[in-house]
């Protein structure tokens, strides 16, 4: 369906000017190779700045790679970037082009610009707005909607004028659970009825685990792993994550606690530890009894998530993945 080979893009170094520090050359995507199958919901997961959006922009013909190839349904997108618009629908992070239109006109115009005639565009617009529960907002300009509603309206525009590949860059940002459910139901329907393929960019770990068939984990422009979420989690199956939240500061006068410090990831009052199950049990026993307990605010014990996979694989960013 979609084959990416050796995709590389380097942003040139920027010389510092007054008020703007110099930035070194950045390799935004570094020899990325992916193979997306038809009918899949394929995810790109990584923290902000990992190169997800740059990769997607190259795959949608919006940016020329320095090297490498992108082939979608047999078409060479690097050589013919204009063909991408006739194969895929893209939902970018920006809505400025649609902000001052009403929800209804945004969807209809997008359909017209995807080559639908006026009647088809209107019919598909009505169907999509009904499907996503946007009909009551149809006459409101996008600008006047909340962030999540606006995102949903942009998603509606992306669905008008059916395409075999949907490229969605963080589609559910700011959405409430109802809107999220509407998005995934709409995606599933297109998959079941037309075999549509979805390429999803996300930094939300929970979303990645629940909706994706396969996920490529990106870190500093490189794919550091690519498998199903369950397959990835098996790599860290032997570990349990222990989160400890201290009331004020960690009780370092307790020797058992002090000994843990080297193995912990600290973020404010929170300590995160990745331990073998029996070790975790011992830690929990220590902190829930004796002197340490007085300093403890809260603790959780959890099976590994994709975030743990990311860190175990050597992902550099300690923060940036979202669990919500």
């Amino acid at each position: 369906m979609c084959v990416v080979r050796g995709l590389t893009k380097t942003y040139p170094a920027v010389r510092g000017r007054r008020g703007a520090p110099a930035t070194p050359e950045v390799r935004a995507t570094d020899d990325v190779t992916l193979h997306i199958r038809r009918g899949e919901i394929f995810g790109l997961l990584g923290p902000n700045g990992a190169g997800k959006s740059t990769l997607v922009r190259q795959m949608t013909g919006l940016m020329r790679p320095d090297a490498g190839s992108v082939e979608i349904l047999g078409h060479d997108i690097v050589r013919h970037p204009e063909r991408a618009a006739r194969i895929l629908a893209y939902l970018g992070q920006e809505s400025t082009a649609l902000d001052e239109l009403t929800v209804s006109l945004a969807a209809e115009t997008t359909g017209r610009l995807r080559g639908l005639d006026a009647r088809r565009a209107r019919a598909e617009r009505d169907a999509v707005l009904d499907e996503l529960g946007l009909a009551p907002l149809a006459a409101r300009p996008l600008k006047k909607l909340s962030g999540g509603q606006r995102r949903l309206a942009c998603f509606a525009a992306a669905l008008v004028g059916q395409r075999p590949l949907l490229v969605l860059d963080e589609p559910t940002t700011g959405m409430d659970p109802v809107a999220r459910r509407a998005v995934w139901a709409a995606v599933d329907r297109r998959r079941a009825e037309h075999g549509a393929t979805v390429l999803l960019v996300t930094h939300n770990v929970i979303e990645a685990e629940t909706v994706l068939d396969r996920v490529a984990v990106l870190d500093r422009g490189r794919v550091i792993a690519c498998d199903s979420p369950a397959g990835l989690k098996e790599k860290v199956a032997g570990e349990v994550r222990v989160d400890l939240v201290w009331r004020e500061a960690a009780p370092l006068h307790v020797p058992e606690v002090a000994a843990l410090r080297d193995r912990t990831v600290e973020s404010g009052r929170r300590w995160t530890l990745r331990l073998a199950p029996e070790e975790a049990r011992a830690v929990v026993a220590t902190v829930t009894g004796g002197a340490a307990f007085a300093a403890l605010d809260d603790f959780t014990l959890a099976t590994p998530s994709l975030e743990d996979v990311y860190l175990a694989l050597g992902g550099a960013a300690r923060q940036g993945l979202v669990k919500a």
Partner: protein
Amino acid sequence: MSVVPADVLPGGVLAAGDGAAGPAELGPRARLWPALAAVYRAQLSRARVARIPLLFVATFQSVGIMILMRGVVDGGGEARAVVAGSAVLVVAFVALNLLAQYFGQLRGSGGLDHYATLPVPPAAVVLGAAGAYASFTVPGTVVTAVSGCLLFGLPLAHLWILVAVIPLAGAALAGLGAALGLLAPRPELATLLGQLGMSAALLLGVLPADRMPQAVKLARDLLPSTYGVEAFARTFGDHPDWAYVLGDLAVCAGVGVVSLAVATWAYRRAAVR
């Protein structure tokens, strides 16, 4: 949350050799005129949401300038130049300045991605937006022209020439505005260029040309709005020389074609980086 496993889908993973059977059929391309109409309609609707206050500003500015000039100019050729210049200034304000800002912001914020990932001809996007902005100028230009004629006691007989002046000056200035907005590397620069263009149209269009130094006159001749002003001003005479009017309008049309072509090229360049 996904309930449909990929391998039970029609032609799903089981049809793994996809792509081997040759390239898939492409979706339809949007044709030029329907796409242009769709962009035009969408842009026009933005006036309701965003542009109305600025359209009033454009008109008030021009009417205000005419009232100011009333004390300085007695009548005759200078009055014609002031009224024509103020009317075309509305076109410069909206079509040049506001369109340059719009495209500058669209480009700066990544909003062009929306159009760039739709199979729409670049000319449709540029012409649709330029046409809509030229249309925004109609009420303000007409109001300015009529109130100017009443203020300076000029004949209303040939105001119909606005039917030609607005679209042709609009095309020239909107093309320039779109090109500036799409070529400017940063949105602030697009805003600046749009403002400068409008200031030039104000100073060089409204002030009577006879008293200008040679260098300023040359700048005036290079500004496309000048020819719209000249064409319009000529029609206030008792026996307008229609050949000159047509000549001026032809210059507007020529600049319009060239600047819109440049804007289309600039859009193409801005869309794929």
